[in-house]
């Protein structure tokens, strides 16, 4: 029994060592050769935000009129950026690290985990920028900020779940890369980031759709984070839009299910990765 415990401890210890080294290496190499380096992590979402702000908020008037909408948009882009970057990069990660997997034996989920963790670091930097900007953009910081980490963990779980599934599928079917690109785009528009959810709610033809949109785990998590971090007053959550509390639990459960399926699928197929690659 004690021996088994020690063995498990040793196994995870090894996984942690590799995990740390890979995250470190990835991060070091990410902005290799660029002048601004890590600053890009913060600069890129800011620039994207600027574009969206001008196009959607100023020209197309996609706004609910609340003072926090711009900062909420910035926060949303950062969070979505994390999700889309982490899933797309993880999808390629197993194949990209193929030379490694074919020559060293190490728990290969580390490859996916370290890639998502790399995006997580960027997200951390972005959120710091968001919080900083929030002071000048009417953000209402309350005790609810304490709830944000839970939502971020949830978002990470969903991301990791998708990442594991995609990475596994990409080993066998490279077509998934094209498909996922389209799915990501669709999901992006299905998530109330560039438009306020109230726009859907107030549309007499599509008001029913608002509830559906909020039930996707990514929408729910992103809205929860914005609600708790920036403005409990102006940013609605799934609980405000869907009134059946049981139905409201769906996105949370779905997050757990996605992660579970991801782990299961990955475990089933990962033993053969070295042979297939």
């Amino acid at each position, binding site marked *: 029994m004690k021996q088994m415990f020690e063995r498990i401890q040793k196994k995870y210890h090894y996984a942690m060592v590799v995990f740390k080294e890979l995250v470190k*290496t990835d991060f070091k190499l990410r902005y290799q050769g660029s002048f601004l380096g890590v600053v890009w992590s913060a600069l890129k979402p800011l620039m994207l935000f600027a574009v969206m702000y001008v196009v959607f908020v100023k020209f197309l008037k996609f706004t609910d009129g609340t003072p926090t909408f711009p900062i909420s948009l910035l926060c949303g882009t950062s969070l979505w950026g994390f999700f889309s970057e982490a899933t797309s990069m993880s999808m390629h990660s197993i194949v990209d690290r193929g030379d490694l997997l074919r020559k060293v034996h190490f728990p290969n989920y580390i490859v996916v985990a370290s890639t998502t963790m790399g995006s997580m670091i960027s997200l951390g930097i972005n959120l710091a920028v968001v919080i900083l900007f929030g002071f000048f953009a009417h953000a209402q910081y309350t005790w609810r900020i304490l709830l944000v980490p839970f939502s971020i963990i949830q978002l990470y779980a969903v991301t990791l779940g998708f990442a594991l599934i995609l990475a596994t599928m990409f080993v066998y079917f490279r077509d998934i890369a094209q498909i996922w690109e389209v799915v990501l785009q669709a999901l992006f528009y299905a998530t109330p980031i560039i438009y306020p959810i109230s726009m859907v709610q107030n549309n007499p033809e599509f008001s029913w759709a608002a509830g559906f949109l909020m039930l996707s785990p990514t929408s729910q998590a992103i809205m929860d984070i914005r609600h708790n971090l920036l403005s409990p007053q102006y940013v609605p959550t799934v609980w405000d839009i869907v009134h059946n509390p049981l139905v409201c639990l769906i996105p949370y459960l779905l997050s757990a299910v996605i992660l579970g399926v991801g782990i299961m699928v990955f475990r089933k197929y990962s033993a053969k990765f070295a042979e297939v690659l």
Partner: protein
Amino acid sequence: MASKETAKKEDDRPVVLSVQHVAKSFRLPTEQATGLKMAFLNWTKGVSGFTEQKVLRDISFEVKQGDFFGIVGRNGSGKSTLLKIISGIYVPDKGTVTVNGKLVSFIELGVGFNPELTGRENVYLNGALLGFTREEIDAMYDDIVDFAELGDFMDQKLKNYSSGMQVRLAFSVAIKAQGDILVLDEVLAVGDEAFQRKCDNFFTKVKKDSKKTVILVTHSMDAVKRYCNNAILIKDGMIIASGDKDKVADQYTLENIRVDQKHSKPKKNEHPEGLNDRVPVFRITPVSQTVANCSDPFLFDIEYQYDGDDGYIAIAMNDIKRGGIPYDSGQKNLHVKAGHHVLHMSMPLKLFNNGEFRLVGSFRIPNKTDEKRTDMIAYTNDDNSLVFAVRDPSNTRDYALLNDSEMKMTIQGYDK
């Protein structure tokens, strides 16, 4: 007596690696199925899209602590697959692999080396992938750098290293890694001569260390003979020889010679090259072991079919390594009866030093105009000839053909 004692001692050592009945096959795609379209088409057509290739059939062996264990075999024999199974990279279809202790495996040198990182960072990354924590690498870092002789370059990016320097660094990580079992695949013979000598010293030292176990996959028979104490030879996914390294190494040499011959196989006619309607069967086959010692005569059979009269067989003995024909039986010395027969032949070997030889036969009939001469009407092609090796512990200097016991130069006297 001494060898018996060591043999007894060996039995007490714990088994650190046990491979039991391992089998592995790969599915090779007949049509590339890495796309949804192909997968769908194959599925609709009911094509599986794969052919099964058995790489390892039934491999069992044990490695004990302190062994320097060699795995040899030709390209494609399955030895790298076996190594990957031992290392845990592949999962065997059948059988089990049990490892006791920390196994550090080098399928390739410098796995995970990144040209954009410095030498130091690469050592840590490489080390982590091999299962070492930062502290453990800290402890062996100086050793690694010393061994690689790259002290001044460790903070340079790897892309600025020469290829020799990269290999040296990778190799140093490999052999300085403090594992219990070291698995090395074809990594000898890197670097310049001085570095080679260093590696040689290292291996000699490891060989004496009874705590360290090394498993070495190699083509170099010199390395096997020099370092290993045990070895296995793999062919077509089976172990065809195991145990004493010299025996295995010699067997491997023979395997390779045999393959050399097969390469020159002619197109399929009714008769193989060298044979024809008049002599449809003519081959030389061994009776003795094809790895022979000097003291016993070498026995072999000649099978032939010839229905005319007055047939002769001539046998030439080729020296494969040194070249030349040390012996030829002569055109008219072996007169043979007509019909389908097998001749039992014997030949002494005590003259020879170690070497590889080939017996080639020719079938002859008398020349009509010149009585002394004969005309060749058939000969044994590479498949029908016989290859054997002489290996005798009493032979020392293998570059010469004749050995000391049969051939000796003596001083007869001085001029004054």
